[in-house]
């Protein structure tokens, strides 16, 4: 037989407060950590959106595209035929730069490459995860413009990405492509203004370009 006097309180009184604190505090900490992680993962610091990428040659799209008006496909030759848009061979640079700016120190790596036969090494700006399949040609041929994903490249002094390339962003368009489509003749236009009735116009383009929206959000469309 036990009575109260034999055995003291197991927990002191303030243990109640601690218990309440734990019950409320642990979820708070979890939610807090999740929020911080989430915000960090979407920050430009982490996604490198709007952060210029250093290159061996400080190539300016602003000068070549915005200033001189060179078509995207002059250098990115395979964009209409292949999954890979193509990075120009040194030869392409030298078509002009054997004549103009031929002594510019900035272009020394290009001239070295041309003379030694060693290729230039560019750092990839848009690096999709290896478990996604992306094909430039199908997008360009169905009216997804360069600028829709790559932003106003004609204003970039160095090159950076303007979208974080998360899956959510891909799906935004794959669920409703009519919001972004252009006539296929306008895909390389950097100064294109969408019409006011974009949704109705986009739906017509879907039909015209035979875009089959049914399979666009299937897993295996991008994860093959």
């Amino acid at each position, binding site marked *: 037989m036990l009575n109260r006097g034999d055995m003291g309180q197991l927990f002191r009184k303030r243990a109640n407060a601690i218990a309440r604190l734990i019950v409320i505090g642990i979820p708070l900490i979890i939610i807090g950590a999740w929020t911080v992680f989430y915000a960090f993962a979407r920050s430009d610091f982490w996604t490198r959106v709007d952060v210029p990428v250093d290159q061996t040659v400080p190539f300016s799209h602003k000068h070549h595209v915005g200033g001189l008006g060179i078509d995207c496909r002059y250098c990115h030759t395979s964009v209409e035929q292949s999954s890979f848009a193509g990075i120009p061979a040194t030869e392409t640079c030298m078509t002009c730069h054997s004549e103009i700016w031929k002594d510019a120190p900035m272009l020394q790596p290009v001239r070295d*490459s041309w003379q030694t036969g060693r290729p230039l090494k560019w750092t990839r700006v848009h690096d999709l995860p290896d478990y996604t399949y992306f094909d430039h040609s199908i997008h360009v041929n169905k009216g997804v413009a360069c600028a829709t994903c790559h932003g106003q490249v004609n204003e970039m002094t160095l090159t950076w990405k303007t979208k974080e390339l998360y899956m959510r962003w891909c799906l935004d368009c794959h669920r409703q492509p009519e919001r972004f489509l252009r006539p296929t003749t306008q895909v390389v236009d950097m100064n294109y203004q969408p019409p006011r009735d974009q949704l109705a116009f986009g739906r017509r383009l879907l039909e015209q370009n035979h875009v089959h929206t049914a399979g666009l959000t299937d897993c295996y469309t991008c994860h093959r």
Partner: protein
Amino acid sequence: MNPPLTSHLSPLTSHLSLLTEFPEGAGDWPNELSRRRFLQITGASIALAGTGACTRNPPEHIVPYVKQPEEIIPGKPLFFASALTLGGYARGVLVETHEGRPTKIEGNPDHPASLGASDLFMQAELLTLYDPERSHAVTNNGQISTWEAIVGELTSAAQEWKTNGGAGLRLLTRHETSPTFLDQARRLRAKYPAARWHEWEPLAAPAPPRIYHFEKAEVVVSLGADFLGSGPMSLRYARDFAAARRPNRSMNRLYVAESTPSLTGAMADHRIVIRPDQLEQFARDLQSSGGSDLAKLISGDLRAHAGKSLLVAGEFESAATYNAVRQLNDSLGNTGATVDYLASANHGAGDLRELIDDIQSGAVKTLSILGGNPAYDAPVDFGFTQLLSKIPRTVHFDLYADETAQHCVWHIPEAHELET
């Protein structure tokens, strides 16, 4: 103690990527590491492996061409019609390449020997192409040498050959049917009349070349021949054979007498298991319509389909079997209908026996071995390996620095068929 994993690689064939994958001593168990400690470290490594996802991807590089080649679209495969040889015979293939690198081989539908099909030898050529153990450098007595050195050596030898007509110069090749090679050999011997060319093909058929027409044969008897599964023509023969095997129209009948299980035996309507030494007698029984009941039955069937039957002898059967088969095909009227015997195309190449005699008499001063590994696969009683040391100048030209290369003064790495 286990030898280090890299010890089986000679300094020549060891490759940087292999060394980083299997660093020196990686296969040795360190003495101071207990089992318990090993499991602790392994466990921690697995736990920490997950944190690898917490970093940003390392920057990737794009390395474009200096001069963009024509036809190549980066990211798109480019197909080439080419030919790969088996036992000296070319079969047409289509090779898929990505940015200039072959990735897949299929048969060429327009080529009569492949008809779009491919076999394991074609597929394996891709693995050979990228094999890191292929030889990488010219060697002189096992030491790495230069291309200039071997060219210099042969140029000075050529001065000698010009005066003596190529006396002492010998070529040893595998069985060659390439028109380009035959022309080169012809021009070489026109320039150096005293030079000799020998062929050694370890798995060559001793019989003259022949072409079967299985699509015209209603009864086929194979004596140890695996015509569906091996040999350079098997892809074509399998297709022809299947064409005459349509269950609801005309279906051929296949008898196979063999001592080794083969694909053809598995396809047979009647498979006769026979000892190798009895095959010759079996062929004679078919000829005389005698012997066992089975032999009588088959020869009866053959005679009932005279001119529409076909007897095939295996690649490695005796000359007597071959002769019996040839005579049977002739007497049944199959020759010209279901089989064509071709005249042996002799391009002037001697055999290995003649070369051995010449080496023994000291007539050979320079031996160029173009492909093949005779030190390994020549009959051992020829003593080829020992005889190689009697020749002052031996040059081995092959994909691998193999046994023959070790016994030759010079070794030159060969380009793979897909690289030429």
